[in-house]
């Protein structure tokens, strides 16, 4: 059992958790992830380590409630427990002094990009951060990213914050203005990462993405997370999750990620129905449900 010591919402259905996991906190490096199982009948889901405090023995994960398991997790509060947390898994990010490094975080992908961006800064890079989100309320970790970057731009689909448009618009402007870019890290939804890859390809800029395939064990024993990278079959959990963006087959990745969509939608619908009819139990549950309902009526499902 792993105790949650801090839990707070950063945005609609986007929640930060600090969890006691000393062994993981001590060893983790930027780019690595954990596998979490919330409760006995739960599934195992991968979540990137957004931060860690070795002295306090805690790791931070940021969860976007998009399905049953993540919504269930998002109802947890400080003092609650998650059943299993295992890690650190995957290869750490390749940190080097590239020169000018552009780090692009799309939505909750910002949480994954943050530790790597910080490491890039510490390694002496000039770090430009581009944060993209649907609208202002979904922009997360802006202050944290500002602190570790030399320049920071925000784009929103609806223009409610920063530049109206997509992260690729901001990147394109940089490239077209003739600025030298030596390295790009893009983490976010698959179409966003694919678009960044296409944008940097003609410039020959080293571009890295962190892929998010479906995983089960996260230790290389099943190959459920296999990704086509160039001509090779890679397991994202042990060979990745970061890969050369110009070699990743994003179309296959997107198709494989849709494999259980019907099942997932049914599970979420049942969970939401149960959550609505469930009588309020403990005090914090009431607040949670109220919040969940409020968010839903806003129509703000991410």
């Amino acid at each position, binding site marked *: 059992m792993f105790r949650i010591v801090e839990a707070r919402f950063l945005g609609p259905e986007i929640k930060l958790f600090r969890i006691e996991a000393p062994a993981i906190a001590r060893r983790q490096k930027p780019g690595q992830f954990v596998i979490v199982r919330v409760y006995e009948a739960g599934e195992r889901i991968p979540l990137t380590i957004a931060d860690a405090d070795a002295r306090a023995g805690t790791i931070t994960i940021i969860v976007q409630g998009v399905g049953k398991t993540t919504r269930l997790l998002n109802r947890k509060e400080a003092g609650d427990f998650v059943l299993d947390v*295992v890690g*650190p898994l995957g290869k750490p990010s390749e940190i080097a002094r590239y020169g000018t490094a552009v780090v692009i975080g799309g939505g909750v992908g910002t949480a994954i990009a943050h530790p790597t961006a910080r490491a890039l800064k510490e390694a002496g890079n000039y770090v430009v951060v581009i944060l993209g989100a649907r609208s202002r309320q979904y922009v997360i970790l802006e202050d944290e990213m500002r602190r570790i970057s030399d320049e920071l731009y925000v784009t929103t689909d609806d223009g409610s914050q920063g530049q109206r448009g997509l992260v690729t618009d901001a990147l394109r402007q940089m490239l077209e203005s003739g600025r030298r870019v030596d390295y790009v890290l893009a983490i976010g939804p698959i179409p966003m990462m694919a678009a960044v890859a296409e944008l940097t390809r003609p410039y020959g800029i080293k571009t890295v993405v962190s892929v998010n395939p479906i995983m089960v*064990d996260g230790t*290389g024993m*099943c190959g459920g997370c296999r990704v*086509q990278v160039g001509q090779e*079959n890679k397991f994202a959990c042990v060979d990745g999750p970061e890969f050369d963006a110009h070699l990743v087959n994003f179309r296959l990745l997107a198709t*494989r990620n849709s494999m259980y969509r019907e099942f997932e939608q049914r599970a979420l619908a049942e969970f939401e129905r149960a959550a609505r009819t469930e009588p309020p139990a403990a005090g914090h549950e009431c607040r949670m449900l109220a919040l969940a309902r409020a968010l839903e009526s806003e129509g703000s499902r991410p």
Partner: protein
Amino acid sequence: MKLPRQKMPEQEPEERRQNFAEVNLGLDEALARREALRCLECASPRCTQGCPVGVKVREFIQLVLEGDYLGAAAKIREDNVLPAITGRVCPQEHQCEGSCILGRRGEPVGIGYLERFVADYERAHGGPALPAPAPPTGKRVAIVGSGPAGLSAAGDLVRLGHEVVVLEALHEIGGVLVYGIPEFRLPKEIVRQEVENLKRMGVEFRTNVVVGKTVTLDELLGEEGFDAVFVATGAGLPVFLNIPGEHLCGVYSANEFLTRVNLMKAYRDDYDEPVFDCRGRDVVVIGGGNTAMDAVRTALRLGAATATIVYRRSEAEMPARLEEVKHAREEGVRFQFLTSPVEFLDDGRGWLEGLRCVRMALGEPDASGRRRPVPVPGSEFVIPARMAVIAVGNRGNPLVQSTTPDLETTPEGYIKADPVTLKTSKRGVFAGGDIVTGGATVILAMGAGRRAARAIDEYLRTGVW
């Protein structure tokens, strides 16, 4: 009077292919005594030699005859810490029963059935009387991996008075016993009980620890204060075919399919893990070993319209246990022998719709002594399938080796260890089971665990490497 081998009562095929309950129902006392009567009580029993852990078969069968079932179980436990498991999953036809003298003229004694009977009897009657451990030695041993090799080493080492901590990457203890072998062959409750027994004997289990990631071998031997480490991480790395279409939705490794169903209980509605919806669909499993049989029978139980084994050699070469092949056939599994897939076919939306296969003919014997299958030109044909499971073997998982540069490995990625002492190239580190030999059997892994325990004990007592 010549007694025939007693039949194991089992669920009817039509009924059992609808459920995940155990197929074999076990012998009752009367059947067990009748079967025990068949033992000739050989003066130098070959059955014990045929058993990889040397169970004293004649002695325990004698105790069954006397009606002392608990005594029989205790006799087995002297050499085998997991009798309820081995009695169910051992390929006895190649081991104890394969060596039984009765097998020369007729059918061998049902040693596996009897072992299972006494272990089940013992469990139903309050569990085993656990042996008292030796006085504490003050030495600490870490065991990496909680599969059969790790569990058997843990049982032996704790009895010798050492402090034993088993580290497991998954959230449940048992390795292939919990993620690989299905409930209908090995109920998970039995694994849990055997693990409980080891806990009662003093073995400490830590789940969610990936050695090589959460902690390294050097840290275990250093700051974590262990005097020796036994690496028993198994052969959990799936082999793919590397043919076109392997990325299609609906194509699984057997490890993934079985882990979803067995460990994550995807076959139950009250668990969250999804798995391919087999209902009414055609399923093909590629391979001829026990893993392939487990996968194909699992697919049937998940409601597959057809479940077909595609195997590149002929029936005679299939490595699966005879009993599993028989059970699979009774349940309606189809077999395509001398057939090899060359491509997974796309339905146009990224999902599997069939396998293009080629017929094979048997050529000259290969390194394994089996006749090598060679493709028959112009024999390609298509088997329709919405789901395919690849069960053509596993290799060693490299996580431990990759962070332990001074641990020597073979070109295939297995850990090099002395066949007798199981010592590796790294002082204080022993290795055994599938991570050394490649995918083998539960009982062979247990045998390796026993040898490791003896060698580790000697090292801890003498300090001689």
